[in-house]
């Protein structure tokens, strides 16, 4: 039957969209943990702004994913909230780096820097997706991410080329985070087929990402780790122990009082 390939494509598209939504949501949720705890009121607001940008991106992707899923789903229509609040850890497809703890300020800056730089090159390509909705979300998000890269790059330079203490903390953070950067450039099953030009070949942005990260690190007088073994699994639903705790907190209200609104 000729409807079968379409169904497969739609489920790939749903998974792909969910993967993008999950990474933005989990990263945004993590950063929102800084709200009220920033080292200074100015940075507290800055990081909360970034968190809100990411949660906004996640909402766009979840709404679209719900639309795709509902095409096949006639009996009960799902919403963006169902996707964010009622899926379990093994169904989440976010990058592992987004779920790692915030740690100290240097670790948080490192996370934003690595992830935002990936988003920056990724969205630049997703704009040319044959899928109009993904392209539009990429276009809107790119402006936000461009600032996140600038903001976090400035902090990497400030900490790396700052005091002995700030440098030591950033070096520790980069060593901790580095093994989680590899999976960002390895296509998952749902993005392995690109005949219809919907998704981005993530392996193609690895060089740009590495060049940018090296360049900023050099400005910060830091050397990047080389030939490290890389973690993977996030896109397949195999997560670190940290995601369960995030979901327990984030999903508590909807799990306890299903359908609650305010």
């Amino acid at each position, binding site marked *: 039957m000729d409807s079968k390939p379409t169904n497969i494509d739609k489920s790939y598209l749903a998974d792909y969209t969910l993967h993008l939504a999950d990474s933005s949501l989990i990263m945004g949720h993590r950063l929102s943990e800084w709200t009220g705890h920033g080292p*200074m009121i*100015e940075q507290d*607001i*800055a990081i909360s702004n970034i968190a809100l940008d990411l949660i906004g991106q996640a909402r766009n992707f979840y709404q679209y994913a719900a639309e795709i899923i509902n095409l096949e789903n006639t009996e009960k229509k799902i919403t963006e909230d169902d996707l964010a609040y009622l899926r379990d850890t093994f169904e989440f497809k976010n990058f592992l780096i987004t779920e790692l703890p915030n740690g100290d300020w240097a670790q948080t800056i490192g996370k934003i820097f690595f992830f935002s730089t990936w988003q920056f090159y990724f969205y630049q390509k997703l704009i040319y997706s044959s899928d109009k909705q993904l392209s539009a979300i990429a276009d809107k998000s790119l402006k936000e991410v461009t600032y996140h890269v600038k903001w976090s790059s*400035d902090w990497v330079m400030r900490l790396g080329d700052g005091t002995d203490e700030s440098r030591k903390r950033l070096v520790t953070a980069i060593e901790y985070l580095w093994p989680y950067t590899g999976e960002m450039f390895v296509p998952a099953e749902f993005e392995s087929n690109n005949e219809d030009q919907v998704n981005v070949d993530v392996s193609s942005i690895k060089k740009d990402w590495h060049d940018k990260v090296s360049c900023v690190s050099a400005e910060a007088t830091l050397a990047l780790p080389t030939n490290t073994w890389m973690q993977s699994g996030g896109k397949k639903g195999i997560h670190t122990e940290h995601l369960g705790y995030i979901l327990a907190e984030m999903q508590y209200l909807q799990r306890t009082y299903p359908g609650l609104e305010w």
Partner: protein
Amino acid sequence: MDQKKEEPLWEVFIRSRQGLEHKHAGSLHAADAQMAIENARDVYTRRMEGVSIWVVESKYIHATNPDEAESFFEPANDKIYRHPTFYDLPDELKYM
């Protein structure tokens, strides 16, 4: 570590979408000018308040002394003839 001690205070001026001039929006702490501009963006323009930002370190602002307010400003109080409201305008001139 007392960061406030290390980071100087900056005055922030924002030009709004409608306005031609930059208006004083407030002040904040930052380590350098670049950080001051980014902080100002995050603190003062997150609700679409601005299209341009100026920052200047507060120590470079020179101000009048409140103790001198009498001699500085009160002499202008009884010089209403300095306002351009004493001309007879022709009727054709509207919207003045």
